[in-house]
Each structure stands twice: as C-alpha cells, then as structure tokens.
C-alpha cells in the first residue's frame, strides 16, 4: 500500500539517512515529493511511502521513536468543480503536468498522484477555483 506523509525532523535528526533506513530495515520505498532540509535546522519532507502494510506501520513507529514528527494529513490541492471554467491557465505553470487539459475535450484533468503541491496553480487560477485542503 501507499501512504503520503509529511515528516518533520528535529535539528539532531537531520543528519540521519532516513530513506536509506526505511528501505533497508523495513523494505519501504520513499518517493520524495517535496523536501526542505538544511544542516542544523528543522527539516520537512513530504514523502510517498510504499510497502507492505505491517512494515509501513513499523516504519512509522520507528520514525516516531526517533522523534521525527509524522503528519498523515498532508496538504493537497483541491479544485472546486463548480468554480472551474476549464480555461487551462493553471496547466502552463504546473511543473509536473498533474494539471493538464484533455487533448480531445479540453476539460481540466487533475492527476493527484503527480502533484508535488508546489501551489503555483493557486494564484494563477483567475476564478479562484484552486485551493489547498489545509
């Protein structure tokens, strides 16, 4: 199964090779969506973890024991279908093509799994149809 989590590292854990440990000890693949890590500062990492459900839970428990903050409610982009006019302006600033226009219908598609929550689409939308759920 897959789980998208936001990890918050205290200063002293920043040096730890977390994704290596997840892979080696728990057989969990960590796909980094966004990261902000600087030496001697609190770091944050948005990752999509995939692996066996029990091992995922064990990995989350282990990270908690290392004082790594875990938030399962990660910020996501939400599109209000009543407001969206399918102009497609957001597709030009989306770096991962998570937002794209159907080549036939020119209707807006949002592929959530590709979204890195960079939020560039939010101020671009002329009808304020895009927001985050947090």
């Amino acid at each position, binding site marked *: 199964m897959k789980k998208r989590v936001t990890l918050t590292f205290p200063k002293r854990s920043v040096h730890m090779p977390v994704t290596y440990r997840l892979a080696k000890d728990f057989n969990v693949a960590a796909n980094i969506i966004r990261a902000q890590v600087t030496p001697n500062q609190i770091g944050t990492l948005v990752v999509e973890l995939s692996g066996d459900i029990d091992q995922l839970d064990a990995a989350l428990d282990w990270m908690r024991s290392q004082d790594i903050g875990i938030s399962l409610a990660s910020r996501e982009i939400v599109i209000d279908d009543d407001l969206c*006019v*399918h*102009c*497609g*302006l*957001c*597709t*030009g*600033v989306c770096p991962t093509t998570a937002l*794209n*226009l159907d*080549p036939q*219908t*020119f*209707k*807006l598609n949002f592929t959530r799994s590709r979204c890195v929550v960079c939020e*560039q689409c939010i*101020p*671009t939308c*002329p*009808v*304020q149809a895009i927001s985050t759920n947090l």
Partner: protein
Amino acid sequence: MRSIAEINDKILRQQAVVWTVEELKAKVQEIGITQAAKQVDVITTGTFEPMESSGAILNIGHTDPPIKIRQCWLDGVPAYSGFGAVDLYLGATQMVDYAGVGDSEGQDLRDRGGGHVIADLVAGKPVHLRAIGQVTDCYSRASFETTISCDTINQFYLFNPRNLYQNFIVGVNGGDRPLFTYLGPLQPQLGNAVYSNPGAISPLMNDPDLQLVGIGTRIFLGGGIGYVAWEGTQHFPLQKRLPNHTPIGPAATLALIGDAKQMQSRWVRGCYFKNYGSSLMLGVGVPFPVLQEEVVAHCAVQDQDLVAPVMDFSIPRRVRPTFGLVTYAQLKSGKIAIDGKAVRVAPLASIYLSRQVAQELKQWIEAGQFTLTEPVAAIPMDRSFVAQDRRGTQINLE
C-alpha cells in the same frame, strides 16, 4: 443559395439544419464544401474568455426624496455616475476602492472588482450600494445607502466597448523575473506561454471579412440574447492577413450589448489576474447563416491554418519584440518551440466552455427560439490603428 428570411422561416418551423462550427469542419473533411453548403442552414460559433473591456449600465430607480448621484460604489467598487441622476456604468476592471470598504474585510476584497460585482448581480445576489449626491433644487438628497439586486433596479444591461477579438497574441516572458499580466503569470526565461483566442472555433476567425456580422446582428451574450452594437474599440481590420483572410494578430473587434437580467451566471464570471486586476469572463456565441458556399469555405478553416504572434512581455513598450508566428494547432498541442527551446503553452480562453456556447446556441436555433437578423449596417473594414503619441515639438525651451 438561401436568404436569411428563408432560413428564419425554417427555424420557426423547427426544420433548420444547424451545425456547430466544429461539426461543420468535420463534415467538410468528409463530404467537401459544396455538399456541406447544400445541407446546412446555420453554423454556430462560440467563445468563452476574459473580455476586460466590458461593463454594465444600471438605472437604480429614483429615491424619495430624489438624488443626483455624483459618486457611487457597488460592493465598494466605484461606478461611473456622470450622466443622468441614477444612471450608473460599472466597468469590469474597476478595482475595489479601499476607502469604501470596512477595514477587516479589505484583505478578502482585494481580488474583487467590477467583473465580480456584475457577475454577482447576474447571479441574483444582493449588492451593497452607497451613493453621494449633489444637492440641487431638483434633487434634494445628499447621500443614499441600500442593497440592490437585479430584480430591484430598472435597467441592467451589458454594454461592452470591446469584445470578441478577431485573433490575439501569445504572451511569453524572455526576462529574468516573473511577470503578472492580463494573460496571467508569465514565468521568466520563457517558462511558459499563454494564448487567449480559441482559434478555429472563435467566431470572427470563421468570418474573416465580417461579411455576415454587422451592426444589429443578434447573438448569444452571457447566456441571454444580445446584439452587435458597433465596431469595437481598437477595431483594426487592416491587420496583415494570410491568404485565407484571417489576421496574423489582433484585428477586428465588436462592441456588444445585451440585457443582463436575462443572462445566466454560468456564462458571466468575474475573474482576477494576480497582481494585474479583475476582469469578466463572458460566453459569446455568433450564428452564421449559410447564404452561399463561401460561408462554408471560410468556416472550414482549421487550427493549422491560423496563426498568432508570440510577444515578449519583458519589454514594457507598446511595440514588444516578437518571436515570430505560431499556428493554433501548435498552441493547442500544449508546446511550442521558441529559439529551439520547448515552451509549455496554456490557453486562457476556455475551449471546453466555448464549445458549449456553440452547442447551446445551436439548441436555441433548433428549438425555434432564436432567429437570425440582417445587419443594419456593415462594420467598417478600413479603420487604421492610431497610437497615442505626443504631438508637436518635443524640445523643451526652458
């Protein structure tokens, strides 16, 4: 081939053959221009895009005692009142006047402008009105405050000085900082490109010489019935044209008018471009009577036959440097090449909703609810495009 009177007769008997312009283009590929022209009576076109030179005329009715309004705000957005006592004109790009808004709400209202207030009135929502009057012997009242809606005022009609651009430009940013434009954000180093005309489905791309559209032409405007009122501002029919007569950049424009009380909020939407300002997104549909084969030949034009110039917005001058012409087929593919670099392209007109405008207009005509009109007068096709330069000597003698 057929006259407008004959077509209207068929429409009223619900026997007219109506195709959207996309259906027509597909049919022409299949059976050719001559056969298609024999079959179809009316071709419908539509667009849905921001049209910032739009505005609404309102007459709010007389108060007792009466007021001669000299300054007025609708939801904090100033409306022009320099004509008859309670006549107002609200422009789509007019920004909220902070002085007129309570301080706690100011933050949320910054993204709102005249376009949003017009859209709210169309949607039947209440709008706060504050007016200051000039006291005279005819009009004794000095100020007035109330809440209005489209049902509590006399006239409420859109009168848009410049709509329905025949072609437009493609915006890019060759500079090194992000730009916030009327085409939305343009990222530096050619990070993205934006085009705003829906190309081959756009009404005036299918009638390049404006032979079918003139003053008095009945149209679909914002989900209600409207009319072509005049040539639009910055109407520039003398723009360079391709052999198929379509312009290579912004060309003809039309002034449109229509009763906003009949409009539907789905087709009239306020919008806001970050760090640029507010505007109004509007659905406009134009029907073309198939009077002769030439009408079908013009409407058969495809995206690969139409071009727009790529303009660099990083040079803030009237004449901006251009990266040359691209076709609408390239634009709609989502990528264009500029100086050998692949650039992401996004539309600003909603092609999805533009198609629905053409579809809805087709249904109106098929149902016998919408008949076609002969233009009262033609739109001039010889207007030059004057720039505003200071006249006379520029030498300062002081």
